[in-house]
């Protein structure tokens, strides 16, 4: 039974804040940073107005935000937080630890460029520095997706087969600060959907004391790290099942990635985040001109759904990967992943990077990209919108 889509005009940040309010987490440690601030400001007001029972901890740094979040989650409290850019960079030490201790924290990341020079605009560099931490990483195209992924995230994080922290990325300003119509679920529905959080060994259970965060020597560290690898490998299956349930609840279909006009595409673009919407527009225009182009929008970056992606792109001769981050001195990160996934396949791959530090990616840029994809031979990374 579908809910009537009563649409609300919300910025991405506000949509995330609404999701957080509806989840009503126990603890929300947070530190302000642009462009994540609309999330915490909106949510703090909701708590102040009595719309959520959450305990906000206004910590003194992102490092402490993640420390408090991991601790609270391990204590047995459902814990959410949010950050951006330098904040994520500062907390990354504990981001690793949160995953290794299997603290199912959910964190919204207003994706923003890393310093220097200091820049506050959209970029995926921040998320990329956390790609090896053991977190599940999801990327949203727009405010609606940000809202929906935030509601999926706790179920995924807390799933007994997974029990890993989850990051939901939404592009800074482009999504966090843009108002768009969003279809919201009712509070009761969300509450029923997320349910109760139960940790099997909560630190607050003093009758059954546990030691969490021990010191591991060479005789055990490897196995304990491998355990994380195994947990991440279970994520796609769990996510798929959750998405089926969420579709029944909301009428909106989600998956690890979305294929757009890909079935008969001869050229395809792989992209994450807000640029995917622009790409759809470009594709529609090119399709009108008879060009067989399509899109693979990746939502689940970690764990990387290599096998499914390989299958989805198996029939496409030319694939471009557009990164919104660099891996300085090497291939951009998403491209490297797709390359690895498609290794041995006849598909010809081309790396693109663009949109760094909030540099716009226009529809025309992407149309041009599709255009040259068929014409130019494959070569080193090409830069979209770079002034040279």
């Amino acid at each position, binding site marked *: 039974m579908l809910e009537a889509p009563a649409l609300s005009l919300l910025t991405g940040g506000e949509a995330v804040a609404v999701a957080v309010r509806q989840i009503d987490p126990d603890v929300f440690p947070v530190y302000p940073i642009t462009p994540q601030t609309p999330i915490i400001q909106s949510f703090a007001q909701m708590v102040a107005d009595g719309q959520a029972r959450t305990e906000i901890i206004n*910590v003194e740094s992102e*490092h402490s935000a993640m420390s408090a979040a991991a*601790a*609270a989650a391990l*204590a047995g409290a459902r814990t959410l937080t949010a950050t951006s850019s330098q904040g994520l960079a500062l907390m990354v030490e504990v981001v690793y630890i949160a995953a290794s201790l299997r603290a199912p924290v959910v964190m919204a990341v207003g994706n923003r460029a890393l310093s220097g020079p200091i820049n506050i605009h959209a970029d995926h560099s921040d998320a990329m520095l956390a790609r090896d931490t053991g977190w599940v990483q999801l990327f949203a195209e727009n405010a609606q997706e940000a809202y929906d992924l935030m509601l999926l995230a706790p179920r995924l994080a807390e799933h007994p087969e997974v029990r890993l922290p989850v990051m939901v990325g939404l592009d800074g300003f482009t999504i966090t600060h843009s108002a768009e119509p969003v279809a919201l679920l009712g509070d009761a529905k969300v509450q029923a959907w997320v349910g109760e959080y139960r940790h099997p060994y909560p630190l*607050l259970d003093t009758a059954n*004391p*546990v030691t969490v965060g*021990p*010191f591991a020597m060479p005789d055990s560290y490897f196995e304990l790290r491998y355990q994380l690898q195994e947990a991440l490998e279970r994520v796609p299956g769990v996510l798929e099942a959750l998405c089926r349930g969420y579709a029944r609840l909301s009428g909106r279909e989600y998956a690890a990635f979305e294929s757009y006009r890909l079935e008969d595409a001869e050229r395809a673009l792989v992209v994450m985040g807000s640029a995917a919407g622009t790409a759809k527009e470009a594709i529609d225009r090119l399709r009108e001109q008879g060009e067989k182009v399509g899109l693979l929008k990746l939502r689940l970056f970690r764990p990387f759904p290599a096998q499914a992606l390989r299958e989805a792109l198996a029939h496409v001769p030319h694939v471009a990967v557009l990164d919104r981050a660099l891996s300085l001195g090497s291939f951009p990160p998403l491209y490297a992943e797709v390359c690895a996934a498609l290794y041995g396949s006849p598909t010809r791959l081309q790396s693109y990077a663009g949109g760094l530090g909030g540099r716009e990616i226009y529809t025309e840029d992407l149309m041009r990209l599709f255009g040259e994809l068929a014409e130019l031979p494959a070569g080193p990374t090409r830069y979209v919108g770079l002034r040279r």
Partner: protein
Amino acid sequence: MPSLKTLAHNAETDVRFTGGHSLCRGCGAPTVVRTVLNSIPTPVVVVNATGCLEVATTRYPTTAWGVPWLHLAFENAAAAASGLETAYRALRKRGAIPDEPLTFVVFGGDGGTYDIGLQALSGALERGHRFLYVCYDNEGYMNTGIQRSGATPFAAATTTSPSGRRDYGKHQTRKDITAIAIAHHIPYVAQAAISHWQDLSDKAVRASQQQGPAFLNVLSGCALGWGHPPADTIEVVRLAVETRYWPLYEVVQGHYWLNHRPERPLPLEEWLSRQDRFKHLFASENREHLTELQALVDAEWTQVEARAVVDAPWFEARPEMRGGRV
């Protein structure tokens, strides 16, 4: 206040810290941990900053801890405690956990407290979380092999502030972390020492009864880092107190109380001469630094003494907060 027999009883009925860890022979840290944990009447949850105590007590899959224990990293123990304490309040508010008292105790070494963990500590103290932060202060980075820290005293030799033909050890004075904690205007701050376990025990109880943050800076010992036989740890720490190097005092709701006034204060040499890290100070060319160190100690003592209420036993002023004097 708990008597020693009460502490033993508590330890018999609720084993909070066991043997089988790999801390050095004669280490002072376990005395801090056992005295504090056995004194606190409520169940406890412990957070541990990275350091000797942490690595040596939790070599996977063993543990010396009989209480819930969490270690995240070096600099964030106070932040982790903030998260735990908030989770406790949140879950209690929702009726998700039993409505029972619980005490959160952080153990951090001086590196994790004075230096790298200072920011998180300051934040947690400012926010007023109800927890007890215990610094087991052995005046250096002992876990990594005796490097200088903000707690290392003036003129002490460490591997990164060595004495040599041209140098006399650490050039800078010790950071007064207790004063920094006091400046947060939290309900309870105290300085204690392992040699004065009863004072430490009393302070642990008082600290755990506060409605906000409490900070305890406990002079521990390190036979390896200070350079004395393991059997002398307690004695050497006691000398630190009896030479007035380490005043035992507490600040309760802003009021200073001197807990121990050495009857016959010993010259600082009595303490210094027992430790290899000060050996070089007895060479004639370093005598001036020894004098300088004595002057620093005297100045700190005078300052604490001037602030402290010494003539009236403080429990008379605040009977609900009574406790032992040493």
